[in-house]
């Protein structure tokens, strides 16, 4: 399983990278971590004429505090995310999600930007970013624009990125104090893509009731889903009572799961309700713990 031939350009600056993309357009593919792209090439399921290698570009792998939240350079490796103290403090949801991606060797190369740009509907990071209401900065020779993580995903392995655009940065706003989070997934084996994964962020008020909740899912549609109806049903409720189970049922109206050998649509629907309920309960517990 050897890849087909391609022209190769190692970009040494952002300008060079976006210039190459502008030149070659749809004939070019960006090589970042390569953990999703190279298997496709080895299997000859993709055959781009040009690979633009962005691994040598300086300044795209920063991880920094930003206004209560964080900015993450597109080239930040998933294993860096997993180990970052800054994230453990500010948004442990990302640490938890990153730890579920593949295996250590995959995470050493795989990048955050790459995961978002590849847009596999079963991938954990896009769903976590949607739950966190993250935004992505996208650049081309035509300038820069900002998209929400939800807007970025437009379908199965498709994004709103134009052929000449490069995702350069992810901005994740701060999470309110007293928030607990959880990323739970059902996969066939540890490290596999999620058959259904749920990210939940639960913020409690001083009486221990849900003040705010954000829920996103992967594996149950052709991209990450933000489960707003579930969220609305939970405001003011206890994070551990029967209202959670009732609210979780609403996720069925918000998803359109695929069927494949790892899970039929019907099974994914069942999982979505279960994983949503459990993620909310766990996030609620963790929020309670932060309160105490």
């Amino acid at each position, binding site marked *: 399983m*050897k*890849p087909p031939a*391609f022209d190769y350009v190692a970009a040494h600056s952002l300008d060079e990278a976006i210039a190459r993309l502008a030149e070659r357009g749809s004939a070019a593919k960006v090589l970042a971590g390569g*953990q999703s792209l*190279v298997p496709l090439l080895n299997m000859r399921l993709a055959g781009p004429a040009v690979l633009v290698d962005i691994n040598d570009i300086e300044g795209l792998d920063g991880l920094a505090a930003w206004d209560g939240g964080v900015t993450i350079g597109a080239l930040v490796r998933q294993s860096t995310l997993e180990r970052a103290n800054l994230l453990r403090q500010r948004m442990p949801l990302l640490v938890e999600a990153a730890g579920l991606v593949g295996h250590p*060797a995959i995470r*050493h190369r795989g990048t955050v930007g790459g995961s978002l740009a590849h847009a596999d509907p079963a991938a954990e990071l896009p769903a976590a970013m949607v739950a966190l209401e993250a935004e992505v900065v996208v650049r081309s020779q035509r300038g820069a624009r900002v998209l929400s993580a939800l807007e970025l995903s437009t379908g199965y392995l498709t994004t709103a990125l134009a052929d000449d655009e490069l995702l350069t940065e992810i901005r994740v706003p701060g999470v309110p104090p007293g928030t607990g989070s959880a990323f739970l997934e059902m996969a066939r084996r540890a490290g596999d893509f999620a058959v259904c994964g749920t990210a939940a962020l639960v913020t409690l008020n001083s009486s221990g009731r849900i003040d705010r909740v954000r829920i996103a899912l992967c594996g149950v549609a052709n991209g990450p889903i933000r489960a707003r109806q579930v969220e609305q049903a939970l405001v003011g409720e206890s994070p551990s009572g029967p209202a959670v189970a009732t609210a979780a049922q609403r996720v069925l109206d918000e998803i359109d799961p695929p069927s494949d050998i790892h899970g039929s649509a019907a099974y994914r629907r069942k999982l979505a309700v279960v994983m949503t309920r459990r993620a909310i309960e766990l996030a609620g517990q963790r929020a309670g713990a932060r309160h105490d």
Partner: protein
Amino acid sequence: MTEMKPARKVALRVIVNGEEHEALVEPRRLLVDLLRDDLGLTGTHIGCEHGVCGACTVLLDGQTVRSCLLFAVQAKGHSVMTVEGLADADGSLHPIQAAFMAEHGLQCGFCTPGFLMTAYELLRANPAPDEEEIRAAISGNLCRCTGYQNIVRSVRAAAETMAAAAATPAVPA
């Protein structure tokens, strides 16, 4: 029908097991093929070529990577360590290799180089891993022969041997 023209090759220098090598390769040439065919280091094995089995695991600048998912040109100017870099040239095994032998951590041996490199990375970062940490570290390497139990025992035994050696000060010459 696409016309096939001979591909333009890229020159590269890479350090493998401490030795510098030069090569002239097509950009699409996988790192694992550079190591095995161009440099004759056949200890790294090919099991799947889609990043799942881990038989091709090597260290790139000290981190485990799937050499079947890297192009040789990406290793340009970088440092690679393969299983051949573990043992001494005189035939004495690295403590991790010795531990695998003592604990029967290999049967057919085909996946073993990948596990050895993974264990090497783990024990450098975490000299006293617990069972859960060992399993997590090796969870990306497939073994079809051993059922993993003896591999976990091997890594634990290696950790103990290496810790004991580190604790014993070297005798001055």
